[in-house]
């Protein structure tokens, strides 16, 4: 029943990786709620401790448990990731479908706007948005959503264009069904796999960008336990050489991002078997 990892084929190994990734994300999610907020309070007796059994990620200069801080930070990241990914998917579906069905002029305009948002330096644009919205969670979500929809919109446009020429669509529209009926009953189900795959693949970008923006000081306020805040504080203490302050929060962030990548690839194989064939 169980094969050695070495004897598995590439697909099986990827599936295993995706399952592990899912489990990891779930564990982080659960931990972020179960760890008591008490661990976030300063505790003079356990300042600056390296990783140990009771504090696997060590403690910082105020005696706060780094594991607790990291988990709470990742929870924030996940939240921002979910909301921003959903918003960018919604924007891209509306613009992608609109571009494909509303005629040449609309298509040209939307394609131009898409090019504009693809070409823009994303991090800098996010900084601009956050700056204008005065930072905080609202700025981050708007900034991240606005910069992540463009590639998906292109994909959806192409998919819908392909669908438009399909026979059953022609029949449906000749029966006089409304545009919205067709969109809801034929277009959305058809592009659903792409939407799910892209939702999952936007996610890692969203959380990494959120952390970067916060790190620079444009995102979450310094009182929030966000990964960007933790790392930016750790930077101030870096010359003391306390590696655990820098290593674990960033490493976990990369791990979470990679987990979503791995799940999204698995989703790609399951939902779009033809194009995923190697």
């Amino acid at each position: 029943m169980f094969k050695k990892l070495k004897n598995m084929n590439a697909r099986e190994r990827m599936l295993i990786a995706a399952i592990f990734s899912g489990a990891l994300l779930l564990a982080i999610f659960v931990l972020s709620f179960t760890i008591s907020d008490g661990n976030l309070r300063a505790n003079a007796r356990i300042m600056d401790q390296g990783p140990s059994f009771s504090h696997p990620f060590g403690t910082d200069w105020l005696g706060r448990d780094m594991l607790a801080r990291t988990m709470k930070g990742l929870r924030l990241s996940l939240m921002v990731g979910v909301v921003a990914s959903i918003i960018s998917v919604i924007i891209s579906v509306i613009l992608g479908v609109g571009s494909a069905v509303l005629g040449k002029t609309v298509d040209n305009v939307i394609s131009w706007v898409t090019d504009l948002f693809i070409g823009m330096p994303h991090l800098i644009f996010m900084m601009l948005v956050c700056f204008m919205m005065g930072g905080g969670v609202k700025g981050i979500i708007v900034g991240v959503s606005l910069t992540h929809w463009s590639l998906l919109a292109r994909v959806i446009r192409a998919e819908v264009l392909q669908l438009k020429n399909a026979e059953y669509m022609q029949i449906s529209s000749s029966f006089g069904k409304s545009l919205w009926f067709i969109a809801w009953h034929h277009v959305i189900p058809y592009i659903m796999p792409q939407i799910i795959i892209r939702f999952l693949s936007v996610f890692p970008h969203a959380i990494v960008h959120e952390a970067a923006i916060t790190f620079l000081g444009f995102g979450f306020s310094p009182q929030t336990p966000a990964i960007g805040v933790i790392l930016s504080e750790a930077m101030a203490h870096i010359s003391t050489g306390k590696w655990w302050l820098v290593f674990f929060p960033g490493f976990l962030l990369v791990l979470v991002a990679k987990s979503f990548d791995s799940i999204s690839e698995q989703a790609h194989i399951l939902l779009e078997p033809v194009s995923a064939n190697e």
Partner: protein
Amino acid sequence: MKDKAQSETLLSVDNLSIGFSQYIGGLKRRTIQVIVDLNASIGHGEVVAVVGASGSGKSLLAHSILGILPGNAIMSGRMAYGGEELTAKRQAALRGKEIAFIPQSVNFLDPLLRVGKQARIGFDRKTAAARQRELFLRFGLKEKDGDLFPFELSGGMLRRTLFATCVREGVKLIIADEPTPGIHPEALNEVLTQLRQLADSGAGVMLITHDIMSALKIADRVVVIKDGRTVEVAEASAFEGQGEKLAAEYTRNLWRALPENDFDLMFAGDGGNGHVA
């Protein structure tokens, strides 16, 4: 023509089998056999046509002789060249020198490299330009054609370029993989003549095709394959009359189904264009 066919064997392929491992839905992998127990042989100065329907694994036969099968291919059987076993090492040393390959389409030329340059690859740097010009002349190409990119070639020029790119002095075995589809009759005859001339000058030619009529114009022997298996190896002269001299039922049907011999209307429908369907 016929007496040369009796000459010593240049290449022999015995019990060749080729399969691929592939993913079939989800996680399962299986092996698909494309060629099973295929046999063929070629002597010096001989043209052997390998005839079969598209997808019958003909090209893989060519690739296996050259040792350029894809990595996931699983091969078994025995190949001998010049009386010695044809190992991967010998293949690497021989291809492009003694064994030449003439591919089937423009896709086999590098799209971003001028065709003259492509024909120069493999020659000594100093003499390459001169030899390429010689070859272009020999195959009826103009000197300035060498400055063209593959996408700028016409069908006929393409065939000639492919010849100029593969045929080198000292070539003993030529493997031509479908060199004839989609060209007008005049160009087709030209290709066939070129191949026959190469054989008459002493080389062995393996002509892989689905077009029996064209193959019979120059072939000494015909190997008929179906679903990757050898159905029959027949002398070209056996293809006459109603095919009484042909051993296998499949070959006879093929022969009769050709429009040129419209004997059997039953087969005229699916084999009507002179090709194996």
